């Protein structure tokens, strides 16, 4: 650790960090466009200029490393003037079409303009215009809005190594072009460039003109797509907030960074998975008993009676949160029921795969950690009572077969799932499970990170956590989690301690 001063206050920071990173850790945000924690340093936007005592010129915070005794000013007159200058330059050729720009509301140019400039343009010349076009099935490019930070180019060069975009020409004629639309179509990470772009130059076709971001609620969650457990933002449209009468639904999923996990991007499959959750048609809308909808009280009553047997089984799910699984586990434990885990569904990795995991479930690791036997190990399959937790997604097909036969042969079988599947269709009772954004939940990813996913929407269609159906006395998701951590991890953990970046086991 070395000591530096920022705006006359002394801080201890790690050696080797850049000024921008060191300041970020302390909580001082230095405006920037081209800096991205996962990409090489370009130093081209000049937005991050700060004053360093003893230096004749302002320095770029993104590329200058801290040194012992360094005195940095991030808000001096010189710095403010420099930022203003850069913003004015960037805006020279910018269309300022915020009213029709999808980035509006989360655009760094808009934000910084209001925060650091807010001056009228002194530019009175025609602006250079390029064609706005769809550069792939998923993505459009509006070069006129581009600030030439080259983040997108660096992402495709350095991370996916697929080089679909590049800058062409030079000077004020420089702009971004796509040389390989097909490549973008096939690139499993292509859509990240819409998150990476600090302005509205790169966007998703399907989000174009779809929603103003201020009409949505942005909640940090964990992707359910695979064992990578990527941090995501789930933008939900909220009936209460909305005038257009839309239903509660997920509008989009985009990247939330997790520096501790080293995760700065998400895959396209995860990103577009939100459509699965918006499937209203197949949603289980009430408890169903022998084909008939029943109310919650009735469901609880029936469950209580049917579970009052000697030989029961609970099959947990790698597709559900720790909380849902552990509550069901406790229910089984109390009754001396068997507990099993299905194997995760696996899929071949795409090219490039980067951090994508073969296991297509967010919580496989939890069940493994608990050393639960696999469903393939079920010997005696004629149970009096069987409960299976299922979710959006799939489990391994061999497990599927096994589980189906358990359900079919049990005297009374219950499936807890949000969308009606073959499992529910073959059970005596179906319980409406919440989808992941309807509750708080934790997941353990393939790298042994326990991470917390936030509730974004209210429980819909009579969905409730499993413990309520099972008549268990938990007041919140967190209560289940605390008990799990204590009993299974031997740790004193709660949501606050997990923080936003999770906890590595």
């Amino acid at each position, binding site marked *: 650790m070395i000591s530096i001063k920022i705006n006359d206050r002394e801080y201890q920071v790690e050696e080797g960090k850049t000024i921008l990173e060191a300041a970020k850790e302390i909580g001082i945000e230095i405006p920037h466009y081209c800096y991205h924690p996962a990409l090489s340093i370009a130093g081209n936007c000049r937005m991050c200029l700060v004053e360093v005592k003893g230096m004749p010129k302002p320095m770029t915070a993104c590329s200058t490393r801290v040194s012992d005794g360094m005195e940095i000013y991030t808000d001096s007159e010189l710095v403010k003037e420099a930022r203003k200058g*850069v913003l004015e330059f960037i805006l020279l050729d910018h269309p300022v079409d915020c009213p029709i720009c999808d980035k509006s509301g989360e655009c760094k140019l808009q934000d910084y303009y209001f925060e650091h400039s807010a001056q009228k343009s*002194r530019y009175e010349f025609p602006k250079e215009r390029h064609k706005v076009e769809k550069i792939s099935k998923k993505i459009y490019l509006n070069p006129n809005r581009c600030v030439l930070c080259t983040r997108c180019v660096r992402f495709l060069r350095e991370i996916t190594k697929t080089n679909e975009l590049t800058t062409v020409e030079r*000077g004020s004629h420089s702009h971004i072009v796509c040389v390989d639309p097909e490549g973008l179509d096939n690139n499993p990470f292509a859509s990240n460039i819409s998150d990476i772009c600090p302005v509205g130059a790169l966007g998703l076709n399907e989000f174009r003109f779809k929603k103003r971001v201020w009409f949505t609620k942005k909640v940090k969650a964990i992707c359910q797509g695979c064992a990578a457990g990527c941090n995501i933002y789930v933008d939900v449209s909220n009936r209460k907030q909305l005038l257009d009468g839309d239903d509660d639904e997920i509008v989009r999923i985009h990247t939330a960074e997790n520096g501790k996990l080293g995760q700065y991007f998400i895959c396209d499959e995860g990103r577009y998975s939100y459509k699965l959750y918006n499937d209203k048609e197949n949603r289980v809308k009430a408890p169903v008993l022998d084909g008939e909808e029943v109310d919650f009280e009735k469901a609880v009553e029936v469950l209580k009676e049917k579970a009052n047997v000697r030989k029961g089984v609970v099959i947990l799910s790698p597709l559900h949160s720790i909380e849902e699984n552990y509550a069901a586990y406790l229910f089984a434990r109390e009754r001396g029921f068997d507990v099993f885990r299905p194997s995760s569904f696996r899929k071949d990795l795409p090219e490039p795969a980067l951090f994508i995991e073969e296991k297509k479930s967010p919580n496989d690791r939890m069940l493994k950690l608990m050393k639960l036997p696999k469903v393939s190990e079920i010997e005696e399959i004629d149970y009096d009572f069987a409960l299976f937790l299922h979710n959006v997604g799939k489990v391994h097909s061999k497990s599927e077969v096994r589980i189906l036969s358990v359900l079919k042969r049990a005297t009374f079988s219950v499936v807890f799932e949000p969308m009606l599947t073959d499992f529910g269709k073959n059970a005596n009772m179906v319980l409406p499970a919440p989808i992941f954004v309807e509750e708080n939940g934790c997941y353990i990813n393939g790298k042994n990170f326990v991470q917390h996913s936030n509730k974004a929407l209210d429980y819909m269609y009579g969905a409730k956590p499993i413990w309520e159906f099972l008549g268990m006395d938990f007041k919140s998701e967190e209560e289940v989690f605390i008990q799990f951590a204590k009993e299974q991890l031997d740790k004193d953990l709660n949501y606050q301690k997990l923080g936003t970046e999770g906890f590595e086991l």
Partner: protein
Amino acid sequence: MSEIVLFKQLLDPEVRNIENYIKLGGYEGLKKALSMQPDDIVNEVKRSNLRGRGGAGFPTGLKWSFMPKGEGQKYFVCNADEGEPGTFKDRYIMSENPHQLIEGMVIGGYAIDATVGYIYIRGEFEFVAKILQKAIDEAYEKGFLGKNILNSGFDFDLYIHLGAGAYICGEETGLINSLEGKTGQPRLKPPFPAQYGLFGKPTTVNNVETIACVPDIIKKGSDWFLSIGPDKNNGTKIYAVSGHVNNPGVFELPMGTPLREIIYEHAGGIIGGKKLKAVIPGGSSAPVLGPEHLDIPMDFDSLKNVGSMLGSGAIIVMSEDTCIVEAYTRLAKFYAHESCGQCTPCREGTAWLYKILKRIEDGEGKKGDIDLILDICGKIMGRTICPLGDAAVMCVKPAVERFREEFEYHIEHKKCMVENKIPIF
């Protein structure tokens, strides 16, 4: 006649042939160098006060001493991009006395422990590159290049790399990127080329004229070099004079030769006996000077003292018939055209400057334009990745300040105050 270090063609017009060059004592510096320790060569160059002729005047020996010691590939690169408007000196070293550059490259390579050298020549100079390549071939034949040079055990290969039209490739890290096959966008510094240069290896970049000084420094010793020119600004300098003079051309003279002598004696004075209006002393990026500066010794420190710079030593002379607004609009266009486009202030600022100047030149200037120009200059200066942004400012700003009246006249009267001018646009 003053001392000749570089332009040996004045002694023998055929010196570009290796035999002739050897007859004039060529490659003796190399022989001597190879008998010395590399460090001793670096020290000798340090003692000679040789300063970079590419623009910045950085002490060459000191630059060489930044190269790390030890194993691993290192490179010695010659900057023959010669793109600074008004500059046309390196070209004549390469076409008339190429062996002196080649000899300097081998000595420099030996001194900094580089076994490969590249000469980066601007693409337009293909005809010069051909002459140079012939000389390189000769040098290989004679064993001055290649393996085990003169039985010293030292290997050095020398290649020519042609640019393709981009002034920014004269900036050393832009040059390195271009040599690596990329766009010539300059790199962030640090790391400096001596740590992380060409192909990621320690690299030294020097100008043609700088390198061509080295053989004679080694052969005749640093004391001899120190005897030419003023203190800390030693040696000869090739002044390239262009513009409104009777006898434009290149003149090798002792560093510190007064501007007046160069313009009025060597370059034959101003065409038609006209008055001097403005003179750029060191390539277009050097702040403009006026008649009151004629007695300035043309060396690094003296020009720095009057707020300009020796730069490449290119002197552009403008007579009273020059419209400064037009001339500087043209130069602003050059910087806008040559900005690599990487960093915001230069990419946008240079283009904006040009547009405003052009509108003034076109008689459509607005009242606040001059202050706007000066304000934009302030927002570029010192805020860019490489010095091109600064160069544009050092070109435009002093001219606008010095000739403010002329700009104001243009704005107010929508026309030029200079009669008989030769139109630029």
